[in-house]
């Protein structure tokens, strides 16, 4: 391994370690935030039960929405929670925009360290801290809800694709939100933009409902959008809804979008810095 590679890996490792230490500094907020995420499960289960009951009051368990039974729906919802635990980036965009607006970004122009890489590894640290705390409750919830997974545990290939989709959804989510934050170079305030994005993401990532229950042409349109990979895709892979050639195509698209937003964030950062440096700093 060359020295420069070794040292750039060491920087990433230290960013990761320092960010982890920082997370531990906010342990109260962190523990509460992690556990509160599990609360909506209960309301979601009741909500879907009410919907399926209204469709078939005599036997809600027999009702189906576009191939999804009540059990499938709950299983799907639990899986999107796992997906979002990887792909959601709370505070990332606003953090980037604030750094630009308040001039904290100067640090990254003066010191030999790259902003996007720095943020990426801090975020990896946030996620590691989160999983460390959330794994047990997640395992408990999945154990309690095991009866909802009517197909049982998927085969190894499917599970491998599921894990890969989660990891890629993390990178996609990161670069996508980094791009929104970098708009801060051109706009003083990005919160409205972020709000609109969040609204779309909430519905079109599949967090609220499986995207394949949408009627055509909406399902097709949504199928082309990158945000479906943030929640719907990993869950659908796990449930065996996407297999074979379609799975390969979708994995390819996920890689494509991740690379696309990685490139876009780089371009936006460089263009933004040129603007920032030219404008006044």
């Amino acid at each position: 391994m060359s020295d420069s590679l070794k040292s750039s890996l060491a920087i990433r490792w230290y960013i990761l370690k320092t960010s982890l230490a920082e997370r531990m500094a906010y342990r109260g907020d962190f523990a509460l935030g992690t556990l509160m995420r599990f609360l909506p499960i209960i309301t979601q289960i009741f909500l879907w039960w009410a919907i399926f009951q209204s469709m078939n009051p005599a036997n809600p368990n027999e009702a189906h929405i576009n191939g999804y039974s009540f059990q499938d729906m709950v299983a799907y919802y639990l899986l999107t929670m796992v997906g979002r635990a990887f792909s959601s980036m709370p505070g990332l965009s606003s953090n980037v925009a604030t750094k630009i607006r308040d001039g904290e970004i100067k640090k990254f122009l003066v010191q030999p360290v790259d902003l996007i890489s720095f943020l990426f590894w801090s975020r990896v640290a946030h996620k590691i801290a989160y999983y460390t705390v959330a794994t047990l409750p997640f395992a408990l919830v999945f154990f309690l809800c095991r009866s909802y997974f009517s197909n049982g545990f998927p085969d190894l290939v499917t599970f491998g694709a599921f894990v890969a989709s989660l990891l890629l959804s993390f990178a996609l989510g990161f670069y996508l939100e980094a791009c929104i934050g970098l708009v801060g170079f051109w706009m003083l305030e990005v919160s409205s933009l972020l709000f609109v994005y969040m609204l779309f993401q909430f519905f079109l990532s599949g967090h609220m409902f499986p995207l394949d229950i949408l009627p055509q042409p909406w399902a097709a349109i949504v199928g082309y959008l990158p945000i479906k990979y943030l929640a719907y895709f990993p869950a659908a892979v796990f449930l065996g809804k996407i297999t074979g050639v379609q799975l390969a195509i979708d994995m390819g698209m996920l890689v494509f979008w991740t690379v696309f937003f990685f490139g876009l964030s780089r371009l936006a950062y460089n263009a933004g810095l040129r603007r920032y440096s030219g404008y006044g700093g």
Partner: protein
Amino acid sequence: MEVVRILGGMSIIQIDHLVKSYRVYQKKEGLREALRGLFHREYKTVEAVRDVSLKVEAGEFVAFLGPNGAGKTTTLKLLSGVIYPTSGSATVMGHIPWKRELQYRRRFALVMGQKNQLWWDLPAQESFRLHQQIYRIAPSDFSKTLDELASLLGVGSLLGRPVRELSLGERMKMELIAALLHNPEVLFLDEPTIGLDVVAQHNIQQFLKQYQEERKITVLLTSHYMKDVAALCKRVVVIAQGEVQYNGSLEGIVDSFSKDKIITLELGEGQTHEGLERFGKIEKILMPRVSIRCMRADVSKSLAQILDGYKVVDVAVEDLPLDEVIAKLFAHVSDPRLNASDTAS
């Protein structure tokens, strides 16, 4: 006014006709104007740095003085590569700053008194460790430098405390350590003592003085505290309205911009101060002491006449206080309607 320096080879910092102007949106008052601003915006060009040329030699400690908005910080930002100029050129240690080469970034440091570069919720030590990696400092050098800096600044026991729990002065010391860990050859300090109490200010001054003398690094400092400047810098560059107005020694400012001196007399018993006003403006009477401000050229003549006609126990002739001269200088350069004689009087 410009001090001509005879240079052999290239200076460590070389600035030639540097210009930085940018457009700012002219926001007008009121809702109607705000609505109009949605469709049509008027911009004004602000010339933050107009035409700055300067040379700084290795090992110099130079102060940038000037009123707020004079272009000092903009110049430091240009030299640290945060912004790039509209025209003109500059090199620092042979690097063009705004190219932002990593090699350059490892050789200098910028400390801004109002900006924080440490992790707020972590002990400073953690930030230092990260700097060690970012700047690729060898572990042995790192602990040696850290020990040295921490003991010089007297903050050894605070390294493990979260930065948010430190006082402003302690935090500034940590900022300085963070900036100096990688042994920068050039240091830019933008108001490092802003908001600090007298003791903390003095500590930081002493530290900077000692550090700079030992390491012979090149330092550019902006500060509004004359005490900082007087304690640290042999050379002063006054920038106002984006241009260099003065470049020379601190004492030289007084010579150049103040043509007055203060004669303070301690009068003998029974002696009144009547008639002293013909020698100049009476600044203060606190019997038996009287201070008279008179033209520098007339000092010896006036003094001879006073000693001749008055019973005087003691006498002192002084320059005007530095702060006053600088304030006048700033007022003058900020207001082009005033002419040179106004500054001098």
